[in-house]
């Protein structure tokens, strides 16, 4: 039990802070050669 408690604390600390923000797709408009 003593070992489980710190592990649980770490998980509880990590999970709420876990964010999945990211770009999924970029459709970039481009102009021809300069």
């Amino acid at each position, binding site marked *: 039990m003593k070992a489980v408690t710190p592990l649980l604390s770490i998980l509880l600390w990590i999970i709420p802070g876990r964010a999945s923000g*990211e*770009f999924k797709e970029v459709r*970039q*408009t*481009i102009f021809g*050669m*300069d």
Partner: protein
Amino acid sequence: MSVALKKVEGVESVQVSLNRGLAEVRLKPGNRIDPEGLRKIVRDAGFTPKGAEVSVRGKVIEQNGNYALEVSSTGEVYALVEDPQRRGTLAELVKVALGEEATLEAYLAESKPPPAENSERTLVLRTFSSSEK
């Protein structure tokens, strides 16, 4: 340009159509790609990057009385503005997802050429989904 874009870590697939003037880049889950990095590659290949339609997931936040999207993979914050042709969408997003994560289809405005690093980044909201992961 296509080869250079494919080499970027986190890129899943690239389709470049010079006829359509479009580079479509799909990104892998867990990527840390900032579209500015992709634009630099386009620029280095001798092309001029303009605006981009993007699919992006992030946290909807309020900042100085305005709304913004915080993208955790890059740490960037994008000001959110309403698409004049889709009035009410931003208000709806804020209503259902303020402080939460949401997936947005949006227009990422053309960036100022370097060295204008600190210019504000703006996303014009098209549609959103607040539940999809």
